């Protein structure tokens, strides 16, 4: 088959060109992975917020999502497994004028980094955490993790997971987060708006994005392509703002409750510095 080769140069600038490290492309993510969608939504949400991009720093841990910091053209830190929130806490406290965003995955934030997550919430550190939840450890080949639903299959639970998972939104809320929202990667506009709100919120804000990992979690649980997973989210997500986060657990099938669950005011740290860099 003759595939036409596109050689024409476009003069039109990619709208996110100033915020992506084009010199690092192609990225390492699999075809059909939700991470690119979340990354785009994050950057658009950031631009919508009016924050000064030079005053925004992104900190990632380890894993597929942990690679996000490396593609974002802001001051960006790719740290150790689980420690992104602790690193971000030091950065924010030392330089309160920065907006510090933690962009990492469910394994990084809820398993090896779970202690830092709950204590940052308890302290109500003025950080925004964007948690991409794909229900497994993708980078290491699809093992079950702290969010894998009961009965879901993975490369270390081939007959079905027997452990009870964390509900990340409930965990963040119980820890003391002032803003908690959950969307799926199929709800791009809502996700974007939530990211803007979270970035402008003072205190510990937490956005969970349920996102496809077709290579492992999807394939092992009868949704073998990114498209299958996105279709599943479309037909099974319901938006219920203000729902008690304790009631929004996610199973291997069935409904996914999304929306903004928590939006409250509470004293936060650091109390000095305006934290939204005059934006």
């Amino acid at each position, binding site marked *: 088959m003759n595939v036409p080769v596109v050689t024409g140069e476009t003069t039109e600038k990619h709208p996110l060109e100033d915020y992506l*490290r084009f*010199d*690092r492309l192609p990225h390492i993510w699999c075809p059909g992975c939700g991470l690119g969608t979340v990354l785009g939504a994050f950057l658009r949400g950031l631009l919508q917020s009016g924050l000064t991009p*030079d*005053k925004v*720093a992104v*900190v990632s841990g380890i894993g597929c999502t942990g690679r996000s*910091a*490396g593609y974002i*053209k*802001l*001051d*960006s*830190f*790719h*740290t*150790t497994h*689980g*420690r992104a929130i*602790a*690193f*971000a*806490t*030091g*950065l*924010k*406290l*030392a*330089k309160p*004028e*920065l907006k510090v965003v933690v962009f990492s995955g469910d394994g990084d934030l809820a398993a090896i980094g779970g*202690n*830092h997550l709950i*204590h940052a919430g308890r302290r109500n550190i003025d950080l925004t955490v964007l948690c991409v939840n794909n229900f497994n450890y993708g980078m290491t080949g699809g093992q079950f993790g702290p969010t894998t639903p009961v009965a879901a299959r993975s490369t270390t639970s081939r007959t079905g997971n027997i452990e009870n998972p964390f509900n990340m939104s409930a965990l963040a809320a119980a820890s003391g987060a002032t803003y908690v929202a959950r969307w799926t990667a199929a709800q791009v506009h809502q996700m974007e708006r939530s990211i803007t709100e979270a970035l402008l919120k003072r205190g510990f804000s937490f956005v969970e994005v349920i996102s496809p990992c077709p290579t492992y979690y999807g394939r092992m649980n009868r949704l073998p392509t990114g498209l299958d997973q996105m279709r599943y989210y479309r037909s099974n997500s319901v938006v219920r703002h203000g729902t008690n986060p304790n009631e929004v657990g996610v199973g291997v099938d069935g409904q996914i409750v999304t929306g903004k669950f928590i939006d409250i005011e509470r004293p936060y740290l*650091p109390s000095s510095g305006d934290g939204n*860099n005059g934006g």
Partner: protein
Amino acid sequence: MSDRDHLEGEHFMSGDDACAEGAISADCRFFAGYPITPATEIAERMSDRLPEVGGTYIQMEDELGSMAAVLGASWGNAKAMTATSGPGFSLMMENIGLGVMLETPCVVVNVQRAGPSTGLPTMVGQGDIMQARWGSHGCYSIIAISPSSAQEVFDMTIKAFNLAERFRLPVLMMMDGAVGHMYEKVVIPPLSEIHLITRRRPDVSPGEYWPYVPDDDLIPPMADTGEGYRFHVTGLTHDERGYPAMNPEAQDKLVRRLVEKVERHRNEIIELEEDGIDDAEVVVCAYGITARVAMIAVERARQAGIRVGMLRLITIWPFPEDKIKRLAGQVKSFVVPEINYGQISLEVERSVAGMSKVVLVPHMGGDVHDPETILEAIRQVVK
């Protein structure tokens, strides 16, 4: 810093307090830590002092987080420190490695107690010397200092910050429980007499800045976060742009530089003190509290007519192997007392390369050596 913040004058204080005051005088403005004996007094004093001088104290949920927060703060343009003891030092190894890889200036204090594991929480040990050198995985060089008195803790804490800023890496203050809890006279000099070094900043515009292009001294200038440089740094093996580079060539180039930037400057880094070395037939080599105990033995040996010298290590890493090599031909024996089962003694053995005899005087910890034990070892080698 105003003069009111700087406690110039004569004080009676513990080694732990002297460490905190040294940090304040060095412009340290961030401390993240987790309580642990015998280092807790450093955290307590920092929690009092930092708010007075406009700094930040945070008590983290564990030592993993403490070390990560110290690195984050350093990238937020603060001189940053943490203080711990053995069990916490083990947890910090993870992010000490990240500090080495990201080339992050900071100071990590380990007030050593006796291990392994929980060991003797309130009692002295020197068992973490090799851990300081090799404790985080992979290849790197590190700088570690072991002070012997409260005054030296003060002075060396300032030096530790200067070395950290100059060489862009975590500098380890390897104190011990005895020096940390000992109260002594400490003289804090006027601010004008304290020389401070701060990290070199890039002199290129943000568009031209790559975070890991070293200067001639192998140390890259460090940009500040939030100033438009939009840099990326990663714990992965990386190239000069700071981008991941998954190949043996990038690994070779990076790791060699991380090691060489320390090793090439050994003479600038290493400090030691010698006493009566020139005509000595025996040299006692010791550090920390053990050097002071050993000095009693050395003096008694001299009274008995033995020509014995004292080599006190202040810097323990990089190890002053050149100095020991030079002495190896002329000195018959080295006696190495330490509160462990042989760590620095192995380095002395390596350095003399069979040219002198090396005798370890081990002590398992909980208290210091009996000077008689060291004296007996000196007597035995000159027999």
